[in-house]
């Protein structure tokens, strides 16, 4: 809770910093504030306090997820030094908006009342609509903002309607009370409840870009400024799954049938459609968009399993995915600067020209592909194991096949990096913040992959 207040205030402080034209220094302010927020989370560890008549609850789950998102946001902000190098004073507003997005994300992993869930989703989304369209002179950025807003508004509508129906049938907005109403069998109208659950699920699937609600993702990802896309691919996805798991684990776990079949189907087609579509992308940014779709499919395995390890499995997967994705987007920014565009054609030979960047990109993509000893492998392994222990063999087989398809497009990027033919390389220099983000994510990917014990058991 302290962290939540701190980050909210931080966002306002950064907005004020804009008045005094503290362009770069506002990043220092924001990053230091986020580090302090993580420290507060660590201080609160194990306290399990709830606030506002039990509407938000900061247990270890909430603290762990909010720390992860806070760190991810800090890394994205650090990339701002390079990305907004030539930006004017108004870039400070964007940093503030990113912080507000994070506030929404923290609400999403700490709610225990559905009103907070809805407020959290809106706090998360509204800054993102603006951020997506923040490259004002770019048509595709405007398109992205508009598209994201329209689709997001629909999704919010679905979610709200779903919440209303769940309330009608169970008589409560509280996760625990909904859960006990369902498990005690006191729900009068099961049909209404099922429709409510499915509508809520649809709302979530929009947010995490799962098939068949993923159509906005590639265009929005491609049109938005790359830094914003990085934030969408990491924080939004982590928050979305953190919230979805809380919802199912807290309320719907004993609801037999309908949601399970729906989620199973969605997971399977998300995995296949996400990975197969990614095969046909020529641009790396679009490729990462589809890759992000497919990773939503993997994370759904844990929600299907819903056993004692599932929360930890989602958390660990989010760590591995966020770290590798931040690295991938940092390097994507570098690629676009160095070669002008992000097509596969453009990155030929870049690995030879810029050995460190090539190495870092290889590690990030190998991790996304799930190759040991990178973190992405451990995460995938843990998910598969969790799912197989709940006898979900077939969906794991689908996930394995998708991983094989996935490996192809990730490795094709690496292979293209090391082709002999050479493109024109623009003379661009990168600052310390850029290199430290790449370095940290690189080390993080390897360390989390090789020594996962602490993180695998952090949520018990």
């Amino acid at each position, binding site marked *: 809770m302290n962290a939540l207040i701190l980050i909210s205030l931080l966002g306002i402080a950064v907005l004020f910093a804009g008045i005094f034209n503290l362009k770069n220094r506002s990043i220092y302010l924001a990053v230091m504030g986020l580090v302090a927020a993580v420290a507060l989370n660590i201080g609160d560890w194990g306290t399990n306090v709830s606030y506002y008549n039990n509407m938000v609850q900061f247990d270890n789950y909430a603290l762990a997820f909010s720390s992860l998102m806070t760190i991810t946001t800090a890394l994205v902000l650090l990339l701002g030094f390079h990305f907004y190098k030539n930006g004017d004073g108004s870039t400070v507003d964007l940093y503030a908006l990113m912080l507000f997005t994070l506030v929404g994300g923290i609400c999403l992993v700490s709610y225990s009342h559905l009103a907070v869930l809805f407020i959290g989703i809106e706090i998360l989304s509204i800054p993102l609509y603006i951020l997506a369209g923040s490259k004002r002179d770019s048509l595709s950025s405007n398109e992205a903002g508009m598209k994201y807003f329209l689709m997001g508004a629909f999704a919010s509508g679905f979610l709200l309607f779903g919440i209303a129906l769940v309330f009608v049938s169970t008589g409560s907005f509280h996760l625990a009370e909904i859960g006990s109403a369902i498990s005690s069998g006191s729900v009068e109208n099961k049909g209404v409840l099922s429709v409510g659950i499915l509508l809520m699920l649809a709302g979530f699937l929009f947010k995490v870009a799962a098939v068949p609600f993923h159509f906005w993702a590639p265009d929005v990802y491609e049109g938005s400024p790359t830094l914003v896309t990085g934030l969408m691919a990491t924080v939004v996805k982590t928050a979305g799954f953190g919230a979805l798991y809380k919802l199912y684990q807290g309320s719907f776990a004993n609801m037999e049938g309908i949601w399970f079949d729906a989620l199973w189907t969605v997971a399977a087609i998300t995995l296949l459609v996400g990975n197969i579509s990614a095969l046909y992308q020529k641009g790396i940014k679009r490729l990462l968009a589809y890759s992000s779709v497919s990773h939503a499919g993997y994370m759904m395995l844990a929600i299907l399993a819903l056993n004692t390890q599932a929360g930890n499995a989602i958390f660990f997967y989010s760590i591995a995915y966020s770290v590798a994705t931040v690295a991938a987007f940092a390097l994507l920014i570098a690629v676009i600067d160095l070669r002008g565009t992000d097509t596969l054609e453009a990155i030929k030979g870049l690995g030879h020209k810029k050995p460190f960047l090539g190495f870092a990109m290889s590690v990030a993509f*190998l991790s996304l592909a799930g*190759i*040991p*000893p990178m973190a992405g*492998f451990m995460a995938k*392994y*843990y998910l*598969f*194991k969790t799912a*197989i*222990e709940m006898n979900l*063999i077939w969906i*794991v*087989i689908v996930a*394995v096949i998708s*991983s*094989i398809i996935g*490996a*192809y497009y990730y*490795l*094709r990027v*690496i*292979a*293209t990096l*090391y*082709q002999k033919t050479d493109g024109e390389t623009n003379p661009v220099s990168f600052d310390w913040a850029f290199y430290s983000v790449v370095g940290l994510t690189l080390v993080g990917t390897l360390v989390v992959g090789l020594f*996962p*014990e602490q993180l*695998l*058991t952090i949520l018990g």
Partner: protein
Amino acid sequence: MLTTALILTPFIGAAISLLAKGNNSRYVALLVALIQLGITAAILGSFIPENGVQFDQNLAWIPSLGINYHVGIDGISLIMVLLANIAAPLIILSQFNRDIDRSHIYNALILFMQAAMVGVFVALDGFLYYIFWELALIPIFFIMLGWGGPNRQAVTLKFFIYTLAGSLFMLVGFILLYIQSDNGFDHTALVGLNLDGDLQLLIFGLLFIAFAIKMPIFPFHSWQPGAYTEAPTQGTMLLSGVMLKMGIYSVFRWILPIVPDAVAQLQGLLITLAVIGIIYGAWIAIKQRDIKTLFAFASFSHVGLIAVGLFTNNAMGFQGALYQSLVHGINAIGLFYCADIIQNRLGDRLTEGKGGIRLVAPWFATLFAIVMLGTVALPLTNGFVGEFLLLIGFAEYSVWFAAIAGLTVIFSAVYMLRMYQLVILGENNTSSNFTFTDLFASEKIVLVILALLVIFLGVYPQPILKLTEPAVMQLLQQINA
């Protein structure tokens, strides 16, 4: 401790080699490989075949998932470790007089690969084993990608995706085994599982896909000829010399003792597939004009016979498979090196338009002949011992089948001798001022060592066979228990 040293030495060596400037990295890499060979010799010296797993070390790694760092060496591991560590210095030495750009990365990757492969051969925890198995894929991917032939991107991706596909199914198999066993992934625990029939078949299928692709066994071989042809010479040596033995070793370690009933049930099918591979590989090899591709199919054909040995379920077959793994590694490295030397001197590797090399390069012609005869399994060469054991083992299963498989010896004589005749013997009739520089010092060292190994292992196989015999007997006990 010594086992861990075997894994760490090449890893550290790889890091040092990365820091070395230009061609110095070769000397660093060679030194590291020789130190590694020294450690191997120390292990060999104090290894007692009858004692089962030795030099073992067991540390908790990820206790919450029942994963341990458990390594150790028994007879089956030792012969593979021996192969990997004899091969590595020769492979490093084989590029001494070649111009290779970014040589420091190249050598680092070779050492990295060696470390990962040794890890595969000594890991006694299923998960640790899997990590090493996958880890070995990364350096060879970059070796092929960075230094391969013109068609390398497509071939490398095919190779990687093929093997990764197998690996992921294997991972699911290991997760199933893990769930059956309360003690996690430990090899001893998995051997003692006594799974029921259907589960054995499922796990066998999941594991076998990975191993069959790696060896490869017909019909999982289609990645192989392209990869062998497009990879740089050292990459091909690593692939055919050592990496494919990971598949053979893995069947010994993780299939035969753990799911023996499934193997017994599918024995006929497995052996038939292997025999098809023998004939099919040899048939295509006869038609090849590119020497390297010819050797690639020859390798595929010979591995078919080793695969037969794996599934005969008798001591002769197992002993033959292990011995022939070592032999095949040595011979494959020698053959691909000879192909590289021809390419280096003449600019191409086709069998046409050559000949007369014997007249100008007697050292090369002689050493090439010895290595080639080893492959053809001439008596008193190493190949003879291995294939003889395999065929005896096979005959215990079925005499008729063994007779068909025995054709491999005749077939290989056909394509090898014909190739040798076209390329090395005769007069050169294409140009009057034909030149072919005889072996340079480093090349001579590599080929002489290989030729000596061919002859030594052919004349005096007893020490090696004694190393593996108790382990094979123990394995047979486990299978028939």
